[in-house]
């Protein structure tokens, strides 16, 4: 299992394959050379032994009495050397104990073929060469007939084997020397393949992390270089389209900011004069009075909308700044409710005092938006619950209405999102919850929404979470 894991790396696999191929090649070379060398060695040694015996016999036969007596056999055996057995009919001449090794197989072959025969055997791990031959009588015309004399000789092949073993060992050593060289070569080859792969991986990682300027310099003209070029092209086109998109988005945001900025001047005038209008409605005709009231209400709405738009623009532009100070959250929430006359419509459940470093104005905006939303769209009673741990503070706003439909939940914080298409005329700007969420995030906290009872029947629940130390986010 470990091995499989280890082999998962490209480098490891390349190295292993390279080393394996080298070792197999070396082993094959060793095997074939050692094999052929040992075969050649054994064959030549065997031929030499056989020839010697043949010559030794040939040297004494012309002087040998025929039919031979025991003396003649002994003479022949002495000429061939130790470990030799000479037979003629019932006569035997033996020297050396190892002649017992002569096999029946060899004897019958010698008798059947009337030719010199050899056999290699291994007894107790020791190699032996058996040589057996009849001695022939040759007529003057070349006709050969067996003389009835048989010579068997046993020769020790241990020296040859030792020589062969030495040969094999040196070949294996040579092959083993090839291993570190092959590993070195494999590392170099793997490195040359893997370096561009690693560079590509780093580049892709940087691209994924958002660094769209990341590129890999293509090297050479192989497949990897083509891949590198393709990835570079891809990065290029992604960068271009993202840049275009960002430009368009920035343009749109700047446009919204500019529009609301421009609206502020006429609104300043309107705000100034509708008050005068409001003071004088008593003296008006009913129609005119209603019209004046509408103008006043709508002006205030417009002011609120423009203010919210500018607030959102500041978040978009990243210019919104926190002004943190030590604040008692419970007191701040209570002040928010009191300032809007909501204290008797909202149930506040909170510990006595919870100190927190935050932007008091932004907290007020969040609370006002959440509670205002609950009062407008939910059913009473509306509850605000403040709780705290050592690291965070939660402010939960719940109502007792039917809750929000499941499909609405993900869009609640969207800008100008209206859950109910028919109910488009609400006193809110449509940006309140979006601004509340941005404010929560600016504090390093967040704002989430769900229903108390997911099955329905429970009201909507907004949870504002604020970290105790906004610097540590």
């Amino acid at each position, binding site marked *: 299992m470990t091995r499989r894991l280890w082999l998962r790396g490209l480098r490891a696999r390349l190295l292993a394959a390279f080393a394996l191929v080298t070792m*197999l090649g070396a*082993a094959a070379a*060793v*095997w*074939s050379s*050692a*094999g052929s060398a*040992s075969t050649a060695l*054994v064959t030549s040694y065997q031929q030499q032994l*056989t020839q010697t015996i*043949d010559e030794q*016999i*040939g040297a*004494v*036969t*012309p*002087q*040998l*009495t*025929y*039919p*031979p007596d025991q003396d003649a056999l002994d003479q022949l055996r002495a000429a061939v050397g130790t470990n030799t057995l000479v037979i003629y009919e019932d006569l035997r001449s033996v020297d050396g104990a190892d002649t017992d090794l002569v096999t029946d*197989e*060899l004897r019958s*072959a010698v008798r059947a*073929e*009337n*030719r*010199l*025969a*050899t*056999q*290699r*055997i*291994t007894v107790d791990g020791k*190699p032996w060469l058996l*040589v057996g*031959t*009849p*001695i*022939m*009588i*040759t*007529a*003057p*015309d*070349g006709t*050969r007939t067996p*003389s009835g*004399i048989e*010579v068997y000789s046993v020769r020790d*092949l241990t020296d*040859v*084997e030792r020589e*062969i*073993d030495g040969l*094999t060992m040196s070949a294996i050593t040579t092959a083993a020397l090839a291993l570190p060289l092959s590993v070195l070569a494999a590392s170099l080859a793997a490195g040359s393949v893997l370096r561009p792969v690693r560079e590509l991986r780093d580049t892709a990682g940087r691209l994924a992390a958002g660094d769209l300027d990341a590129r890999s310099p293509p090297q050479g003209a192989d497949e990897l270089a083509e891949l590198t070029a393709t990835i570079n092209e891809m990065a290029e086109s992604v960068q271009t389209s993202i840049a275009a998109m960002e430009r368009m988005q920035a343009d749109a945001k700047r446009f919204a900011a500019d529009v609301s900025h421009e609206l502020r001047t006429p609104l300043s005038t309107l705000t100034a004069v509708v008050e005068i209008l409001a003071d004088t409605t008593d003296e008006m005709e009913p129609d005119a009075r209603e019209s004046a009231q509408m103008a006043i209400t709508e002006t205030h709405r417009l002011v609120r909308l423009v203010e919210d738009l500018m607030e959102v623009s500041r978040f978009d532009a990243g210019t919104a700044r926190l002004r943190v100070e030590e604040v008692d959250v419970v007191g701040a929430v209570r002040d928010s409710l009191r300032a809007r006359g909501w204290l008797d419509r909202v149930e506040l459940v909170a510990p006595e005092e919870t100190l927190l470093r935050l932007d008091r104005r932004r907290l007020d905006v969040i609370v006002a938006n959440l509670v205002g939303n609950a009062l407008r769209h939910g059913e009473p009673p509306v509850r605000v619950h403040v709780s705290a741990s050592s690291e965070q503070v939660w402010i939960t706003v719940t109502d007792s209405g039917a809750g929000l439909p499941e499909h609405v939940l993900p869009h609640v914080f969207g800008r100008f999102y209206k859950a109910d298409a028919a109910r488009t005329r609400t006193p809110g700007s449509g940006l309140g919850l979006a601004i509340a969420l941005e404010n929560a995030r600016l504090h390093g906290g967040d704002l989430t929404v769900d229903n108390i009872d997911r099955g329905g029947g429970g009201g909507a629940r907004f949870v504002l979470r604020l970290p105790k130390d906004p610097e540590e986010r």
Partner: protein
Amino acid sequence: MKRVWWAAVALLVAGCGVQPTGVTDGGEAPTGVAPGVTLYFVDADGELRPQQRQTGSLGTISEALSLLLLGPGGSGLRTEIASTSTPRVGVTVEPEVIELVTPLTIDDVTPLGIDQIVCTALSTHVQGGGSRSTEVRVRFTLPTPESDEQRTCPLIG
């Protein structure tokens, strides 16, 4: 995969050491034993005839030629080689040629007598394991072109 590894190991091991074999042929068996030697004489019709001499062993070419020079004895055969007081012949065996140095002059032998010498030498050579295609040069005591001729036996070869 495992089987491949075992095969590779087996192949490697097979290359090592001296392996036993069955019985293999080692060529011609040695020869050279014989109950006696073959000499060549001439019969009544003037033809070459081999004569067996039971000497107990084959012996050398030189020994055979000495016996030949001593004559056929009482066997109804005759020799066409003049008798000599020193029946000893020098023999040099080379791979293709046997050179004989006789104690005779060219006048001491008839062509048939030369055949007697050549056949006896070759017969002994062949019985001792020599090749039948070996040729014989017979040298005489006095210089003669016949000394350089390479001869074969009409009965052998």
